[in-house]
Protein backbone atom coordinates (compact mmCIF):
# COMPACT_ATOMS: atom_id res chain seq x y z
CA UNK A 1 0.00 0.00 0.00
CA UNK A 2 2.74 2.46 0.81
CA UNK A 3 4.83 4.19 -1.74
CA UNK A 4 7.58 1.78 -0.97
CA UNK A 5 5.48 -1.25 -1.78
CA UNK A 6 7.36 -2.06 -5.02
CA UNK A 7 10.66 -1.55 -3.25
CA UNK A 8 9.49 -3.71 -0.35
CA UNK A 9 8.49 -6.36 -2.85
CA UNK A 10 11.96 -6.04 -4.32
CA UNK A 11 13.55 -6.51 -0.94
CA UNK A 12 11.51 -9.59 -0.14
CA UNK A 13 12.08 -11.00 -3.62
CA UNK A 14 15.78 -10.46 -3.14
CA UNK A 15 15.52 -12.36 0.12
CA UNK A 16 13.86 -15.25 -1.70
CA UNK A 17 16.18 -15.35 -4.62
CA UNK A 18 19.29 -14.80 -2.57
CA UNK A 19 20.26 -11.58 -4.26
CA UNK A 20 21.69 -8.80 -2.11
CA UNK A 21 19.81 -5.81 -0.70
CA UNK A 22 18.29 -3.69 -3.43
CA UNK A 23 18.34 -0.08 -2.30
CA UNK A 24 15.25 1.96 -3.16
CA UNK A 25 15.80 4.36 -6.00
CA UNK A 26 14.07 7.11 -7.91
CA UNK A 27 11.16 4.77 -8.48
CA UNK A 28 9.99 5.85 -5.01
CA UNK A 29 8.94 9.17 -6.49
CA UNK A 30 7.25 7.74 -9.57
CA UNK A 31 4.48 5.53 -8.20
CA UNK A 32 2.07 3.69 -10.41
CA UNK A 33 -0.34 5.86 -12.34
CA UNK A 34 -3.85 5.21 -11.07
CA UNK A 35 -5.53 7.07 -13.90
CA UNK A 36 -4.46 9.49 -16.56
CA UNK A 37 -6.21 11.89 -18.85
CA UNK A 38 -5.27 14.50 -21.35
CA UNK A 39 -6.63 18.03 -21.37
CA UNK A 40 -5.69 20.61 -23.99
CA UNK A 41 -2.73 18.50 -24.95
CA UNK A 42 -1.40 18.34 -21.39
CA UNK A 43 -1.12 14.91 -19.80
CA UNK A 44 -2.43 14.64 -16.24
CA UNK A 45 -1.52 11.58 -14.20
CA UNK A 46 -3.33 10.71 -11.02
CA UNK A 47 -0.91 8.94 -8.69
CA UNK A 48 -0.66 8.39 -4.93
CA UNK A 49 1.37 11.56 -4.67
CA UNK A 50 -1.18 13.79 -6.36
CA UNK A 51 -3.86 12.20 -4.18
CA UNK A 52 -1.74 12.92 -1.10
CA UNK A 53 -1.36 16.51 -2.30
CA UNK A 54 -5.14 16.89 -2.40
CA UNK A 55 -5.65 15.17 0.92
CA UNK A 56 -3.05 17.41 2.56
CA UNK A 57 -4.45 20.56 0.94
CA UNK A 58 -8.05 19.82 1.81
CA UNK A 59 -7.14 18.72 5.34
CA UNK A 60 -5.27 21.96 5.92
CA UNK A 61 -8.17 24.00 4.55
CA UNK A 62 -10.56 22.06 6.75
CA UNK A 63 -8.35 22.68 9.77
CA UNK A 64 -8.07 26.42 9.08
CA UNK A 65 -11.79 26.81 8.43
CA UNK A 66 -12.61 24.87 11.59
CA UNK A 67 -10.18 27.05 13.54
CA UNK A 68 -11.86 30.31 12.48
CA UNK A 69 -15.40 29.06 12.04
CA UNK A 70 -16.53 30.42 15.37
CA UNK A 71 -13.76 32.79 16.49
CA UNK A 72 -13.69 33.74 20.15
CA UNK A 73 -11.70 36.36 22.01
CA UNK A 74 -10.62 33.61 24.36
CA UNK A 75 -9.67 30.93 21.84
CA UNK A 76 -10.56 27.28 22.05
CA UNK A 77 -7.93 24.63 21.50
CA UNK A 78 -8.30 24.41 17.73
CA UNK A 79 -8.51 28.17 17.29
CA UNK A 80 -5.45 28.57 19.48
CA UNK A 81 -3.38 26.23 17.32
CA UNK A 82 -4.50 27.92 14.10
CA UNK A 83 -3.99 31.34 15.61
CA UNK A 84 -0.48 30.47 16.79
CA UNK A 85 0.48 29.41 13.27
CA UNK A 86 -1.10 32.46 11.70
CA UNK A 87 0.45 34.81 14.28
CA UNK A 88 3.85 33.22 13.71
CA UNK A 89 3.64 34.22 10.05
CA UNK A 90 1.74 37.49 10.51
CA UNK A 91 3.81 38.94 13.35
CA UNK A 92 7.06 37.00 12.99
CA UNK A 93 7.42 37.29 9.22
CA UNK A 94 4.96 39.74 7.65
CA UNK A 95 5.42 42.44 10.29
CA UNK A 96 8.97 41.87 11.53
CA UNK A 97 10.73 40.60 8.40
CA UNK A 98 8.85 42.25 5.54
CA UNK A 99 8.53 45.48 7.50
CA UNK A 100 5.90 48.08 8.34
CA UNK A 101 4.20 47.66 4.96
CA UNK A 102 4.24 43.89 5.31
CA UNK A 103 0.89 43.16 6.95
CA UNK A 104 -1.05 42.99 3.64
CA UNK A 105 1.24 40.10 2.68
CA UNK A 106 0.37 38.13 5.81
CA UNK A 107 -2.42 36.09 4.14
CA UNK A 108 -0.17 35.16 1.21
CA UNK A 109 2.72 34.20 3.48
CA UNK A 110 0.37 32.28 5.77
CA UNK A 111 -1.09 30.39 2.81
CA UNK A 112 2.45 29.56 1.70
CA UNK A 113 3.42 28.38 5.17
CA UNK A 114 0.32 26.28 5.80
CA UNK A 115 0.35 24.77 2.31
CA UNK A 116 3.99 23.70 2.57
CA UNK A 117 3.52 22.51 6.16
CA UNK A 118 0.50 20.35 5.30
CA UNK A 119 2.26 18.75 2.35
CA UNK A 120 5.49 18.28 4.28
CA UNK A 121 3.66 16.62 7.16
CA UNK A 122 2.55 13.90 4.76
CA UNK A 123 6.15 12.68 4.83
CA UNK A 124 5.64 11.06 8.23
CA UNK A 125 1.91 10.43 8.33
CA UNK A 126 1.31 6.68 8.19
CA UNK A 127 0.04 5.25 4.88
CA UNK A 128 1.07 8.42 3.07
CA UNK A 129 4.67 8.71 4.14
CA UNK A 130 5.77 10.75 1.20
CA UNK A 131 5.61 14.49 0.84
CA UNK A 132 4.35 15.95 -2.42
CA UNK A 133 7.09 18.53 -1.88
CA UNK A 134 9.60 15.80 -2.75
CA UNK A 135 8.23 16.11 -6.27
CA UNK A 136 10.07 19.08 -7.77
CA UNK A 137 6.94 20.35 -9.57
CA UNK A 138 5.26 21.57 -6.39
CA UNK A 139 8.14 23.52 -4.79
CA UNK A 140 8.84 24.89 -8.25
CA UNK A 141 5.29 26.21 -8.58
CA UNK A 142 5.57 27.95 -5.20
CA UNK A 143 8.99 29.39 -5.98
CA UNK A 144 7.77 30.64 -9.36
CA UNK A 145 4.80 32.37 -7.75
CA UNK A 146 7.12 33.95 -5.18
CA UNK A 147 9.53 35.02 -7.93
CA UNK A 148 6.79 36.76 -9.91
CA UNK A 149 5.36 38.32 -6.76
CA UNK A 150 8.52 39.85 -5.34
CA UNK A 151 9.57 41.28 -8.69
CA UNK A 152 6.10 42.69 -9.28
CA UNK A 153 6.01 44.20 -5.78
CA UNK A 154 9.47 45.68 -6.33
CA UNK A 155 8.30 47.39 -9.52
CA UNK A 156 5.06 48.52 -7.89
CA UNK A 157 6.71 49.94 -4.77
CA UNK A 158 9.89 51.46 -6.19
CA UNK A 159 9.04 51.90 -9.86
CA UNK A 160 10.53 49.74 -12.59
CA UNK A 161 13.44 52.10 -13.27
CA UNK A 162 14.66 52.37 -9.72
CA UNK A 163 14.04 48.69 -8.92
CA UNK A 164 16.08 47.36 -11.84
CA UNK A 165 18.70 50.09 -11.55
CA UNK A 166 19.33 49.21 -7.91
CA UNK A 167 19.76 45.56 -8.87
CA UNK A 168 22.01 46.28 -11.85
CA UNK A 169 24.06 48.93 -10.07
CA UNK A 170 24.03 48.22 -6.38
CA UNK A 171 24.23 51.60 -4.59
CA UNK A 172 27.35 52.27 -2.55
CA UNK A 173 29.62 50.02 -4.58
CA UNK A 174 32.78 51.43 -6.25
CA UNK A 175 32.22 51.82 -10.01
CA UNK A 176 34.94 49.36 -10.98
CA UNK A 177 33.35 46.67 -8.85
CA UNK A 178 30.20 46.70 -11.01
CA UNK A 179 32.04 44.39 -13.41
CA UNK A 180 31.94 41.80 -10.65
CA UNK A 181 28.85 42.78 -8.68
CA UNK A 182 26.33 43.36 -11.48
CA UNK A 183 26.37 39.82 -12.94
CA UNK A 184 26.22 38.36 -9.45
CA UNK A 185 23.27 40.57 -8.52
CA UNK A 186 21.38 39.70 -11.71
CA UNK A 187 22.00 36.02 -11.17
CA UNK A 188 21.12 36.35 -7.51
CA UNK A 189 17.84 38.19 -7.97
CA UNK A 190 16.43 36.49 -11.03
CA UNK A 191 17.85 32.97 -11.03
CA UNK A 192 19.43 31.87 -7.78
CA UNK A 193 16.72 33.06 -5.42
CA UNK A 194 13.76 31.17 -6.93
CA UNK A 195 15.91 28.17 -7.79
CA UNK A 196 17.34 27.80 -4.28
CA UNK A 197 13.91 28.41 -2.81
CA UNK A 198 12.50 25.48 -4.81
CA UNK A 199 15.51 23.19 -4.55
CA UNK A 200 15.99 23.68 -0.80
CA UNK A 201 12.47 22.51 -0.04
CA UNK A 202 12.46 19.78 -2.67
CA UNK A 203 15.86 18.37 -1.73
CA UNK A 204 15.10 18.31 1.97
CA UNK A 205 11.87 16.39 1.51
CA UNK A 206 13.40 14.17 -1.15
CA UNK A 207 16.41 13.26 0.98
CA UNK A 208 14.28 12.89 4.09
CA UNK A 209 12.04 10.41 2.35
CA UNK A 210 15.02 8.47 0.98
CA UNK A 211 16.56 8.24 4.44
CA UNK A 212 13.36 6.91 5.96
CA UNK A 213 12.84 4.40 3.18
CA UNK A 214 16.42 3.14 3.27
CA UNK A 215 16.39 2.59 7.03
CA UNK A 216 12.90 1.05 7.04
CA UNK A 217 13.59 -1.33 4.15
CA UNK A 218 17.03 -2.04 5.57
CA UNK A 219 15.44 -3.12 8.85
CA UNK A 220 12.98 -5.37 7.01
CA UNK A 221 15.77 -6.88 4.96
CA UNK A 222 18.05 -7.45 7.96
CA UNK A 223 15.25 -9.00 10.03
CA UNK A 224 14.38 -11.35 7.16
CA UNK A 225 17.88 -12.78 6.86
CA UNK A 226 18.50 -16.01 8.73
CA UNK A 227 22.06 -15.13 9.55
CA UNK A 228 23.95 -12.86 11.92
CA UNK A 229 22.63 -9.70 10.27
CA UNK A 230 19.49 -9.94 12.43
CA UNK A 231 21.55 -8.23 15.17
CA UNK A 232 21.72 -5.08 13.05
CA UNK A 233 17.99 -5.10 12.28
CA UNK A 234 16.98 -3.24 15.47
CA UNK A 235 19.66 -0.63 14.85
CA UNK A 236 18.24 0.07 11.42
CA UNK A 237 14.69 0.18 12.81
CA UNK A 238 15.78 2.53 15.59
CA UNK A 239 17.44 4.78 13.05
CA UNK A 240 14.20 4.86 11.05
CA UNK A 241 12.37 6.06 14.17
CA UNK A 242 15.02 8.63 15.04
CA UNK A 243 15.02 9.89 11.47
CA UNK A 244 11.24 10.21 11.62
CA UNK A 245 11.57 12.65 14.50
CA UNK A 246 14.34 14.42 12.65
CA UNK A 247 12.04 14.59 9.65
CA UNK A 248 9.37 16.21 11.82
CA UNK A 249 11.86 18.96 12.64
CA UNK A 250 12.78 19.36 8.97
CA UNK A 251 9.09 19.54 8.01
CA UNK A 252 8.43 22.57 10.21
CA UNK A 253 11.81 24.14 9.57
CA UNK A 254 11.54 23.99 5.78
CA UNK A 255 8.00 25.39 5.78
CA UNK A 256 9.21 28.24 7.99
CA UNK A 257 12.45 28.84 6.10
CA UNK A 258 10.65 29.05 2.76
CA UNK A 259 8.23 31.63 4.19
CA UNK A 260 10.92 33.66 5.96
CA UNK A 261 13.05 33.82 2.81
CA UNK A 262 10.05 34.98 0.79
CA UNK A 263 9.58 37.57 3.56
CA UNK A 264 13.13 38.88 3.15
CA UNK A 265 12.73 39.02 -0.65
CA UNK A 266 9.52 41.01 -0.23
CA UNK A 267 11.31 43.27 2.23
CA UNK A 268 14.04 43.89 -0.37
CA UNK A 269 11.37 44.75 -2.94
CA UNK A 270 9.44 47.11 -0.68
CA UNK A 271 12.35 48.94 0.90
CA UNK A 272 15.09 50.33 -1.31
CA UNK A 273 18.30 48.35 -1.13
CA UNK A 274 20.91 49.75 1.20
Amino acid at each position, binding site marked *: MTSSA*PALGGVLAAEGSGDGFQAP*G*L*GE*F*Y*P*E*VIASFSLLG*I*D*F*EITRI*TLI*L*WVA*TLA*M*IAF*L*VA*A*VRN*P*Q*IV*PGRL*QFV*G*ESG*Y*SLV*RDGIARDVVGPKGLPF*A*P*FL*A*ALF*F*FILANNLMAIIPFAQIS*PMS*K*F*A*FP*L*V*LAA*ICWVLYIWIGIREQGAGKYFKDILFLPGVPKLMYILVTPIEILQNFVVRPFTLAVRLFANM*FAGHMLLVVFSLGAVYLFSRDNFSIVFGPISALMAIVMTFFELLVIFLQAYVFTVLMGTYLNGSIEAEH
Partner: protein
Amino acid sequence: MSILAAESANPLLPPVGEIIIGLIAFAIVLLVMFKFVAPRFEQVFRARREAIEGGIERAEAMQAEAQAALEQYRAQLAEARSEAAQIRDQARAEGQQILEELRAQAQEESARIVARGEEQLATARQQVVNELRGQIGTLAVQLAGQVVGESLADDARRSGTVDRFLAELDGMAAAGDGAVGARKSTR
Protein backbone atom coordinates in the same frame (compact mmCIF):
# COMPACT_ATOMS: atom_id res chain seq x y z
CA MET B 1 5.92 0.05 -16.18
CA SER B 2 6.26 3.45 -14.66
CA ILE B 3 9.06 2.23 -12.40
CA LEU B 4 11.19 1.44 -15.36
CA ALA B 5 10.33 4.77 -16.91
CA ALA B 6 11.17 6.46 -13.63
CA GLU B 7 14.68 5.17 -13.52
CA SER B 8 15.49 7.23 -16.56
CA ALA B 9 13.47 10.26 -15.48
CA ASN B 10 15.12 13.43 -14.24
CA PRO B 11 13.55 14.49 -10.93
CA LEU B 12 14.37 18.13 -11.70
CA LEU B 13 12.28 18.10 -14.90
CA PRO B 14 8.69 17.93 -13.70
CA PRO B 15 5.79 17.11 -15.99
CA VAL B 16 3.55 20.04 -16.88
CA GLY B 17 0.49 18.29 -15.47
CA GLU B 18 1.96 18.24 -11.97
CA ILE B 19 2.85 21.92 -12.17
CA ILE B 20 -0.72 22.79 -13.06
CA ILE B 21 -2.12 20.62 -10.30
CA GLY B 22 0.26 22.29 -7.82
CA LEU B 23 -0.88 25.70 -9.03
CA ILE B 24 -4.53 24.81 -8.59
CA ALA B 25 -4.01 23.36 -5.12
CA PHE B 26 -2.07 26.39 -3.92
CA ALA B 27 -4.57 28.74 -5.53
CA ILE B 28 -7.35 27.11 -3.55
CA VAL B 29 -5.39 27.54 -0.30
CA LEU B 30 -4.68 31.16 -1.21
CA LEU B 31 -8.33 31.82 -1.95
CA VAL B 32 -9.55 30.32 1.31
CA MET B 33 -6.83 32.17 3.22
CA PHE B 34 -7.60 35.57 1.67
CA LYS B 35 -11.39 35.30 1.66
CA PHE B 36 -12.08 33.53 4.89
CA VAL B 37 -9.26 32.62 7.24
CA ALA B 38 -7.12 35.78 7.36
CA PRO B 39 -10.04 38.24 7.77
CA ARG B 40 -11.44 36.13 10.59
CA PHE B 41 -8.08 36.00 12.35
CA GLU B 42 -7.59 39.74 11.92
CA GLN B 43 -11.07 40.30 13.29
CA VAL B 44 -10.28 38.20 16.36
CA PHE B 45 -6.97 40.03 16.89
CA ARG B 46 -8.74 43.36 16.61
CA ALA B 47 -11.51 42.30 18.98
CA ARG B 48 -8.96 41.04 21.47
CA ARG B 49 -6.90 44.22 21.27
CA GLU B 50 -10.02 46.31 21.72
CA ALA B 51 -11.12 44.19 24.65
CA ILE B 52 -7.76 44.71 26.36
CA GLU B 53 -7.52 48.38 25.52
CA GLY B 54 -11.20 48.87 26.40
CA GLY B 55 -10.57 47.29 29.80
CA ILE B 56 -7.63 49.60 30.42
CA GLU B 57 -9.64 52.59 29.26
CA ARG B 58 -12.54 51.66 31.49
CA ALA B 59 -10.24 51.32 34.47
CA GLU B 60 -8.66 54.69 33.71
CA ALA B 61 -12.05 56.34 33.34
CA MET B 62 -13.16 54.87 36.65
CA GLN B 63 -10.02 56.10 38.37
CA ALA B 64 -10.49 59.57 36.93
CA GLU B 65 -14.08 59.55 38.10
CA ALA B 66 -13.06 58.52 41.60
CA GLN B 67 -10.40 61.23 41.62
CA ALA B 68 -12.96 63.81 40.51
CA ALA B 69 -15.36 62.69 43.22
CA LEU B 70 -12.61 62.98 45.82
CA GLU B 71 -11.73 66.47 44.61
CA GLN B 72 -15.35 67.49 44.70
CA TYR B 73 -15.78 66.09 48.18
CA ARG B 74 -12.70 67.93 49.38
CA ALA B 75 -13.87 71.15 47.80
CA GLN B 76 -17.27 70.79 49.40
CA LEU B 77 -15.68 70.10 52.76
CA ALA B 78 -13.48 73.19 52.49
CA GLU B 79 -16.46 75.25 51.41
CA ALA B 80 -18.53 74.01 54.33
CA ARG B 81 -15.71 74.78 56.70
CA SER B 82 -15.25 78.30 55.41
CA GLU B 83 -18.98 78.83 55.47
CA ALA B 84 -19.16 77.71 59.08
CA ALA B 85 -16.30 80.03 59.99
CA GLN B 86 -18.05 82.86 58.18
CA ILE B 87 -21.30 82.19 59.98
CA ARG B 88 -19.44 82.09 63.29
CA ASP B 89 -17.70 85.37 62.55
CA GLN B 90 -20.93 86.98 61.49
CA ALA B 91 -22.71 85.78 64.62
CA ARG B 92 -19.90 87.10 66.75
CA ALA B 93 -20.04 90.47 64.97
CA GLU B 94 -23.81 90.62 65.30
CA GLY B 95 -23.59 89.81 68.99
CA GLN B 96 -21.04 92.55 69.44
CA GLN B 97 -23.26 94.97 67.59
CA ILE B 98 -26.30 94.06 69.63
CA LEU B 99 -24.26 94.46 72.79
CA GLU B 100 -23.07 97.87 71.64
CA GLU B 101 -26.59 98.93 70.77
CA LEU B 102 -27.94 97.75 74.08
CA ARG B 103 -25.19 99.53 75.91
CA ALA B 104 -25.80 102.74 74.00
CA GLN B 105 -29.53 102.43 74.57
CA ALA B 106 -29.03 101.87 78.27
CA GLN B 107 -26.68 104.81 78.50
CA GLU B 108 -29.14 106.97 76.66
CA GLU B 109 -31.95 105.79 78.92
CA SER B 110 -29.96 106.46 82.04
CA ALA B 111 -28.96 109.86 80.73
CA ARG B 112 -32.56 110.64 79.99
CA ILE B 113 -33.67 109.50 83.44
CA VAL B 114 -30.98 111.57 85.08
CA ALA B 115 -31.89 114.57 82.99
CA ARG B 116 -35.57 114.26 83.81
CA GLY B 117 -34.79 113.86 87.51
CA GLU B 118 -32.64 116.96 87.44
CA GLU B 119 -35.31 118.83 85.58
CA GLN B 120 -37.98 117.81 88.06
CA LEU B 121 -35.68 118.68 90.89
CA ALA B 122 -35.02 122.07 89.38
CA THR B 123 -38.72 122.69 88.83
CA ALA B 124 -39.57 121.65 92.36
CA ARG B 125 -36.84 123.82 93.70
CA GLN B 126 -38.01 126.79 91.65
CA GLN B 127 -41.53 126.22 92.89
CA VAL B 128 -40.31 126.05 96.49
CA VAL B 129 -38.19 129.13 95.99
CA ASN B 130 -41.13 131.05 94.50
CA GLU B 131 -43.47 129.93 97.25
CA LEU B 132 -40.92 130.64 99.84
CA ARG B 133 -40.23 134.04 98.30
CA GLY B 134 -43.92 135.02 98.67
CA GLN B 135 -44.34 133.58 102.11
CA ILE B 136 -41.02 134.84 103.46
CA GLY B 137 -41.81 138.34 102.14
CA THR B 138 -45.18 138.43 103.82
CA LEU B 139 -43.89 136.76 106.96
CA ALA B 140 -40.91 139.09 107.16
CA VAL B 141 -43.04 142.16 106.64
CA GLN B 142 -45.50 141.03 109.24
CA LEU B 143 -42.70 140.05 111.56
CA ALA B 144 -40.87 143.33 111.05
CA GLY B 145 -44.12 145.27 111.51
CA GLN B 146 -44.81 143.53 114.72
CA VAL B 147 -41.23 143.88 115.92
CA VAL B 148 -40.94 147.50 114.99
CA GLY B 149 -44.53 148.12 116.00
CA GLU B 150 -45.17 150.58 113.38
CA SER B 151 -46.71 150.27 110.00
CA LEU B 152 -44.55 151.61 107.36
CA ALA B 153 -46.44 154.42 105.74
CA ASP B 154 -44.85 154.49 102.44
CA ASP B 155 -45.51 151.38 100.23
CA ALA B 156 -42.68 152.33 98.01
CA ARG B 157 -40.25 152.34 100.80
CA ARG B 158 -41.69 149.17 102.18
CA SER B 159 -41.30 147.28 98.87
CA GLY B 160 -37.77 148.64 98.51
CA THR B 161 -36.81 147.22 101.85
CA VAL B 162 -38.41 143.89 101.09
CA ASP B 163 -36.72 143.67 97.72
CA ARG B 164 -33.38 144.44 99.22
CA PHE B 165 -33.86 141.74 101.76
CA LEU B 166 -34.93 139.20 99.17
CA ALA B 167 -31.97 140.05 97.01
CA GLU B 168 -29.79 139.36 99.96
CA LEU B 169 -31.58 136.03 100.39
CA ASP B 170 -31.06 135.22 96.67
CA GLY B 171 -27.38 135.92 96.99
CA MET B 172 -27.23 133.51 99.88
CA ALA B 173 -29.19 130.91 97.90
CA ALA B 174 -26.89 131.28 94.88
CA ALA B 175 -23.91 130.65 97.09
CA GLY B 176 -25.66 127.54 98.39
CA ASP B 177 -26.39 126.33 94.78
CA GLY B 178 -22.78 126.72 93.80
CA ALA B 179 -21.80 124.56 96.71
CA VAL B 180 -24.33 121.92 95.64
CA GLY B 181 -23.03 121.90 91.97
CA ALA B 182 -19.47 121.46 93.16
CA ARG B 183 -20.45 118.52 95.28
CA LYS B 184 -22.22 116.85 92.29
CA SER B 185 -19.24 117.12 89.93
CA THR B 186 -16.94 115.32 92.31
CA ARG B 187 -19.23 112.28 92.33
